[in-house]
């Protein structure tokens, strides 16, 4: 998860990012383009994990960037730009899911094909990637939007309880509770046998 590592949470705000934000506020669209290129993977991954659909995720990510652009003047430079844009994206996705009125997707349902990065991976890697992504997405789709957002921000973005609370505009204890319950729910869905299978699979892939 390269993007996750390079875009980890809690880092000091990069002065280059602040310069781009300031330039974008002054009407420089190229500066905003730099911001889009820097954070598009982070925003898109969040939208995809929330919505479980590539087309809808692309629409939601586009909407999140547009809202960020139109509200740049409200951005607080003391806060991480990534956190800000992710909070816009996660709230937008939660709204979309609520509008969808919680159409639960079964773990067994096939999910749309995945869009992979331009680096051509080996066929076996693609299969493992597809399988793992499908299984996780199925489990995530069973969670309520608020729980799903907490899990995604914790595991894909490595945010602390406090940072997630800030993004989702709630308290730290509420986030802890959502995370614990969500993890418990996934564990219950997974069951003992499936958990053992996942663990064996994980050991095999690590040993290979």
């Amino acid at each position: 998860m390269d993007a996750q590592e390079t875009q980890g949470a809690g880092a000091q705000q990069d002065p280059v990012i602040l310069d781009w934000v300031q330039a974008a506020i002054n009407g420089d669209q190229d500066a905003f383009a730099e911001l889009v290129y820097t954070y598009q993977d982070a925003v898109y991954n969040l939208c995809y994990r929330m919505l479980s659909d590539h087309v809808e995720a692309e629409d939601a990510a586009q909407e999140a960037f547009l809202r960020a652009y139109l509200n740049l003047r409200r951005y607080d430079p003391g806060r991480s730009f990534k956190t800000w844009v992710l909070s816009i994206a996660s709230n937008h996705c939660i709204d979309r899911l609520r509008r969808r009125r919680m159409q639960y997707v079964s773990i067994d349902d096939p999910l749309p094909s995945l869009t992979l990065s331009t680096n051509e991976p080996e066929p076996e890697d693609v299969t493992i990637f597809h399988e793992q992504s499908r299984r996780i997405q199925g489990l995530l789709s069973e969670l309520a939007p608020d729980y799903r957002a907490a899990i995604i921000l914790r595991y894909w973005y490595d945010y602390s309880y406090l940072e997630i609370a800030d993004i989702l505009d709630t308290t730290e204890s509420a986030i802890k509770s959502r995370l614990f319950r969500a993890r418990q729910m996934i564990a219950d869905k997974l069951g003992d046998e499936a958990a053992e299978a996942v663990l064996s699979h994980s050991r095999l892939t690590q040993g290979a």
Partner: protein
Amino acid sequence: MADERQTRRMHEALDDQLAPEELDALYQGLDSDRHDASLFERLRTVDRMLREAPYENAPQTLALRVLAKIAEIKPEQLRRGAGLAIALGLGLVALLLLPLFAALGWLIIQVLSNPAAAVSAVISILGSIAGVILAAVQSVQTALLSSPLIPAALLGAIPAGLLLLRRLRGNRLDRERRERLGAPPKEEE
């Protein structure tokens, strides 16, 4: 069966939130309870699975789509929002302060020209206000005594009013949160 505290500890251990001594206590508890150990193993599998989850990269079309949309936005559209909000805010403040300033000005002029008359005028105004309040209270008392239905209806209106206030406050907080996050107002379904 894992109690709530023990389950909480398991989750905190997965999030690296436990002190070494608390972690030792957790592992000791797991050694003596197979059910707890099984639960912890399942939670750890979920944790591991999520940590190893792949990261979905954005399709190449995303940035192009965003930039094409942004190119359609005129610079005035960006400034309009902030300018309008400031103008409205200032207008509202001026409107609220206008009667206050007018009353203050009148009082200062009166005090400078004839202090005794100004004091008597203020007392007379306050007396008139008190008289109006007293008359209103008396008429309400009379109305309440005339029919037992009125007090009952008023009593029933209290919880309804509280619910309405709570809902209005909830809507306001929601709107503020959305504004802070740059989201548009909630659409009515």
